[in-house]
């Protein structure tokens, strides 16, 4: 059935009604939901964050558009999905990352994470995370250099490394930090503090985001509220978010009960790092998550467990990115083994179905 043949008869057959929720409408609403988080990021980290968001989004959109021009097909930027990718890339990068590195990350996200697989609907992984995984390896040091939130001069002055000349390594931030950072600044995120020194962070700080971390991942409560908007408008699968968060909380609570001095409490687990952003906006990417009801729960639980395992027992302080990428990788498999049970299925059919999968 060629597309042309299908669309020429499609005009005349039922159903004659369509839900107004089309792909572009959904994607545009996700962008709306991300905007408050962007605003908070700018308030938290200043003009460096603003520049980061603008650059990442611009590069992402441009990459897709230019590709479409070269591939001689109508541009697909109108479906808004690439805007989401651009914004998400910015939100998961450190605020002090040189802008040129951010641009590369954004380019890789769209080119390798999305276009390479065949564009929207075919990407196996969440494109933003593909870019970030690439940069984690390519730019290890700048990707793990953190700056304090809410510095006094943040609205007037770039973090010096932001403006590094393209293709040069950024200079050290030590000198600048020692002059602007508050006393006791260690250059570590709450997760790193926990990993290396078993020190917790004030809960209110975690929930409201005035901590060091990636540009848009710090304000757990705000992210949750923005996600709620999408849930209410039925444009996001809350089951994924819910299952990830509940699994991560329960699983980490288990360890916390065993040894509170060694392991963080569940609230810390949920509030710190990019778990909230990941669970609300990245694991829920429709394309790279399973499409079946049961599959979605399995996927969420899987990611929740992986996050805790990597955070507590892996070599890295943060595991959300890898947990979601792993979840993406197994999601087709999950879909396949969780096919819905058909209404009125008779035995024979069920057996056939099993043979089929």
């Amino acid at each position, binding site marked *: 059935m060629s597309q042309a043949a299908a669309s020429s008869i499609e*005009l005349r057959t*039922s159903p004659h009604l369509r*839900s107004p929720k*089309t*792909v572009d409408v959904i994607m545009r609403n996700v962008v709306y939901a991300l905007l408050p988080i962007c605003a908070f990021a700018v308030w938290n980290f200043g003009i460096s964050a603003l520049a980061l968001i603008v650059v990442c989004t611009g590069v992402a959109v441009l990459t897709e558009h230019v590709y479409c021009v070269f591939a001689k097909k109508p541009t697909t930027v109108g479906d808004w999905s690439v805007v989401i990718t651009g914004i998400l890339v910015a939100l998961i990068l450190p605020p002090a990352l040189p802008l040129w590195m951010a641009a590369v990350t954004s380019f890789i996200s769209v080119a390798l994470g999305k276009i390479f697989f065949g564009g929207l609907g075919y990407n196996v992984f969440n494109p933003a995370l593909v870019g970030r995984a690439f940069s984690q390896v390519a730019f290890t040091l700048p990707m793990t250099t953190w700056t304090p939130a809410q510095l006094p001069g943040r609205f007037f002055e770039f973090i010096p490394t932001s403006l590094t000349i393209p293709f040069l390594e950024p200079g050290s931030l030590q000198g600048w930090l020692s002059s602007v950072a508050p006393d006791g600044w260690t250059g570590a995120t709450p997760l790193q503090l926990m990993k290396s020194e078993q020190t917790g962070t004030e809960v209110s700080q975690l929930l409201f985001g005035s901590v060091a971390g990636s540009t848009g991942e710090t304000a757990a409560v705000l992210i949750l509220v923005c996600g709620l908007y999408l849930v209410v408008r039925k444009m996001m*699968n809350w089951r994924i978010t819910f299952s990830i968060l509940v699994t991560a909380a329960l699983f980490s609570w288990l360890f916390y009960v065993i040894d509170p001095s060694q392991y963080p409490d569940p609230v810390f687990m949920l509030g710190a790092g990019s778990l909230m952003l990941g669970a609300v906006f990245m694991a829920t990417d429709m394309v790279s998550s399973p499409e079946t009801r049961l599959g979605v729960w399995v996927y969420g639980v899987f990611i929740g467990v992986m996050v805790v395992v990597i955070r507590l027992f892996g070599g890295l302080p943060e595991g959300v990115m890898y947990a979601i990428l792993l979840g993406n990788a197994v999601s087709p498999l999950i879909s396949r083994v969780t*096919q819905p049970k058909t209404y009125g299925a008779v035995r024979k*059919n069920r057996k056939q179905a099993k*043979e*089929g999968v």
Partner: protein
Amino acid sequence: MSSTAHTFRPLSIFRKSFSHGIHPAENKHYTEHKPIERLPFPSELYVLLSQHAGKPAVPLVKPGQEVVRGEPVARADGFVSAPLHAPATGVVKRIDLVPTSKGPRKEALVIQVYPGETQEVLYGQDRDIDAMSKQELIQAVQDSGLVGLGGAAFPTHVKLSPPEGHVIDTVLINGCECEPYLTTDQRLMIDQAADLIEGTKILMKILGAPRAIIGTEDNKIASAEAIKKVLPADGTITVQVVRTKYPQGAEKMLAKALVNREIPSGQYPSSVGLAVFNVATTVELGQLLPKGQGVIERVVTITGPGVDKPGNYIVPIGTPLRFIMKKLGYEGSAKHLITGGPMMGDTVSSLDVPITKGCGGFLVLTPQQFEENTLSERFPCISCGSCVDACPMHLNPAQLGKLAAKRMYLDMDKYHLFDCFECGCCSYVCPAGIPLVQYFRVSKKMNREMKAASP
């Protein structure tokens, strides 16, 4: 199409239903408060010989012959077939090919209606239902030419003879009318509640069923109330109000909601002790059988924003659509007409198609609405799972759609292609605008052809 917002019914969540399904805008407000009215007779009627499932009827009359309203004009050809009765007093002019809503032209009796005739039904004789045996009743039902008036047009008497070994313990009367816009059944339940009960009793008697449940949705509370007033005191017939959700009116969904039974794939409702009849059919049965008359007219909802005088009208079988639309002040073409509801109905090929027994409504959309709803932009499947969550049969339309696009028609059996009853929920919700139902129709055809080619 969001001309009206959804009615908010918080209590709905406590009502019974099936799982999955969708909530399109109901749009019943055009006609739900309009009592059933009679339209005048046209000058010519086109009575199709094949307006039921099964073999076409065989004409009993010749061109030039006079017929009296209600007189049999064609006989059933075998068991799965139904006779026809003259919808008006007049003269048979010829037997001709006329357009049908599905497209191909089919044979019809062309009857010229005598003008000025009172058009009283003189044919038929009163019967004492209580004194009749089961076999006599079934024969009487066939003689009345009654078929499923909900749309399928399956001869009713066939359903009344369930396969050997199937015992019917419950008769379900389907008053859900879940398609947006349509209000035929809704009005019938109010305006002819007594006939509905009479019909239900006859069905119970024939099938030997001890109880019957009339199911309707909670957007039709007035209908439920109207029926409750005339329910028999012995409690054998009850009314149940279920959640308003599409496609609640599908047989399988109704069985699930009312008595929590699943009709196994590929089997009849009788295999789980059920027999399901539509409200319009049951009303007609209750009205005709005691009088020994045949089906000569039906209630048709003509509705939608594109027509000036929407309403529920009694129309003689065979009335050309053009005549009705003109009476209602519609000047446009057939292009924006849909026969049946917007979810499962077909577009109309021509205004010359006649009304048949199975046709319960015409929906007239504005050209703009048509554009909005059919020319939706197409995106690739984004695996959102909306279709999976909407499919009342719990299929995986996304997966089926992918296989169809790859022309892997035979592989679609594994995903229960033939359990799909083309309700349209998946296409409705798909944000990518993929014409899933369209794919499945083609796939079923291809699948059958491929199987026939290589046994």
